């Protein structure tokens, strides 16, 4: 709720009347869906990290694992297995490719710890989940990622290469307990760190999500040429007015009879920073991005840049297109001439 209000507050550029206007028109359902889409990746992260930390504590120092006194232990005990499976499935779909090795590490780690707790006496099963499976999985995923790692190093993206290589190797060594005296402090510190870092990160991510459609509205007298292109976010259209929140955070009320046209400006999203891909799957794409086709971003319509469109071909004898504030048609575009 706080996030939703903050988002509107940011959209209104901290102007109370603007915010109240937005509250009046912005649909709560739209806000909630934006919130859900933007932050869906965080749920698996929280669930898996806390589950792993809880199980690590339980395996390493069982006498300190007290669900009645420790929130971490309580959460671990109360989290049913299907929630973990759902979290892993959700993360597979919504985490960027470069974080999927990390997901693999968390999943294998969790599986090994849980097996150790549930079947401590079955040595073969412990061996499979604690060693064989991580080794096989690490080998498989590293084989799959193999072309991307040198590519990342060539591009100077050491961090990306580390994210791809280190977690699968980590899965091989992490599948057991840590020293008993350290375990409570370690798990608690990590749990608090996650709890402290994640909310601000989620807040920042959500505050940047677009809530209203970006539009360019052509404005001008009914008979004459388009005088202005208002670029902004469409708040609503009433029977008399089109209400647009322009780029400077100012609300523009445009009478409908002066609105000559309206154009949806595509939100190109964030252009990826990394140049690395794995068989055409870009490391900054989630599995969902990769599977669902998207509209390629081309050159934006000039009106989406706030430019008034050039009028149609001038009639013979009429002056050429002279736009306000320009020094005049000192040179016409190159005419090929009678070659």
């Amino acid at each position, binding site marked *: 709720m706080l996030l939703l209000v903050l988002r509107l507050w940011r959209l209104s550029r901290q102007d109370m009347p603007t915010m109240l206007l937005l509250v009046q028109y912005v649909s709560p359902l739209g806000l909630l869906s934006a919130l859900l889409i933007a932050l869906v990746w965080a749920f698996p992260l929280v669930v898996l990290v806390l589950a792993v930390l809880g199980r690590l504590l339980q*395996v*390493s*120092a069982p006498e300190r694992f007290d*669900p009645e006194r420790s929130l971490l232990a309580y959460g671990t*005990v*109360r989290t*049913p*297995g*299907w929630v*973990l499976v759902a979290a892993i499935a959700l993360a597979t779909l919504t985490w960027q490719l*470069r*974080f999927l090795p990390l997901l693999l590490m968390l999943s294998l780690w969790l599986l090994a710890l*849980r097996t150790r*707790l*549930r079947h*401590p*006496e079955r040595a073969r099963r412990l061996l499979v989940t604690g060693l064989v499976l991580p080794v096989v999985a690490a080998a498989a995923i590293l084989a799959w990622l193999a072309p991307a790692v040198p590519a990342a190093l060539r591009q100077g993206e*050491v*961090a*990306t290469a*580390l*994210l791809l290589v*280190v*977690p699968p190797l*980590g899965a091989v060594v*992490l599948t*057991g307990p*840590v020293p*008993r005296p*350290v375990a409570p402090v*370690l798990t608690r510190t990590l749990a608090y760190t996650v709890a402290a870092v994640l909310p601000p990160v989620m807040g920042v991510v959500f505050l940047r999500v677009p809530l209203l459609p970006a539009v360019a509205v052509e404005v001008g007298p009914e008979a004459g040429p388009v005088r202005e292109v208002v670029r902004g976010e469409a708040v609503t259209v009433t029977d008399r007015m089109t209400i647009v929140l322009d780029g400077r955070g100012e609300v523009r009320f445009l009478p409908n009879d002066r609105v000559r046209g309206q154009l949806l400006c595509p939100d*190109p999203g964030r*252009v*990826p*920073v*990394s*140049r690395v891909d794995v068989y055409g799957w870009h490391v900054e794409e989630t599995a969902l991005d990769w599977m669902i086709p998207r509209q*390629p*971003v081309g*050159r*934006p319509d000039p009106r989406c*840049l*706030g*430019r008034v469109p*050039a009028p149609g071909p001038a009639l013979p004898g009429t002056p050429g*297109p002279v*736009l306000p*504030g*320009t*020094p*005049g048609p*000192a*040179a*016409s*575009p*190159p*005419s*090929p*001439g*009678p070659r």
Partner: protein
Amino acid sequence: MGQDDETSGDPPATAAAATAPARRPGSRQVRLAALLFLLVVLAAAAVRVIVASGPPTWDELRERAGLTNRDRLIIGVKDDQPGVAQRLENGAFEGFDIDIAYMIAEDLGFDAPEVTLLSIESEDRARRQARDADGSFVTVDLVIASYSITEQRRDQGVVFSFPYLETEQSVLTLASNPRQVASLRDLDRAKVCTLGTSTSEQRLREAGASPIGRNRISECVQALYDGEVDAVTTDAAILAGFVGPRPPGELPPATKLLRRKELRHWDIGAESAEKWGVNTGPVPEMRDLVNLSLYQSAKGPDGDRWKAAFDRYLASEQQYSNPQQVAVGRQPEPEEKVEVRQWPWERWALPSPSRPRSGVPTAARGPSRRNRRSSGC
């Protein structure tokens, strides 16, 4: 899976879990060390990739260069250099520089009708001051006016793009003049006209010639026709346009030369190359955008645009200037790689960062500009 919560309350299980690894305390230490190492590495890497902003996108560059809400791009060009940049009687411009200007403008997001070309004089190129139709001075966005990149000009504060043409200094005399010119020293005690603020003037002094500075190269050539000077020297790509005949049917230029005579183009064996660059003004993002355009035209998939302009104007002049090379027929190598952030599909497939192909004066791009019948004026 959901039932294993009971393990916490199952003493034998937990005890076994605790005792089994406890027999090997060393492995726990190793695991702790591995875990801490892993945490540090992964946290650092994750933070690094999340906050990494990378190079700017094309849109960001445009915004920082102040082009976002602009309706027009104003470019200063020469207007009296046939083949390089010449204004015709009807007010239109043509030439190699003009095609390069339209190419760069297109890459900056301006189609041909949104580009205003203004004539600029040599001495105004550093300050980017050109005269508009009313005669008042306007600061242009770019200067693309056969402007050689020199350290001295850089020191004076001119910001140059990558070079877009490489040529050299050469000499023009009347074909009737018996003087053989093989180097600048052959012009000893000769009256030689050149552009006032050009790079040629100093070399002339060093060679012992008496340089006469003019503001426009057409004035120099007119002085040569009129016998006021013995030779004209400047960049070969500029002089070559005066040597050959004007193709029949072509619109007459706005700057007309009188009493034309046959000219001869001399190779003076100049070693130092004259590299022409764009004066992009002080905003670094503008320079980056122009460099990006030149980089795309040199290395990008639609690299034929530079070549088309060269073939159309400069290559066709070569036959009249032999053995002097008009200019190097390859776009100079960009000095460095220009990075912008792009969508993956743009990197794989695309033309340049900005556009679907449209626009430029494609109609003006014939395969060859000139179809000359014979030499001599």
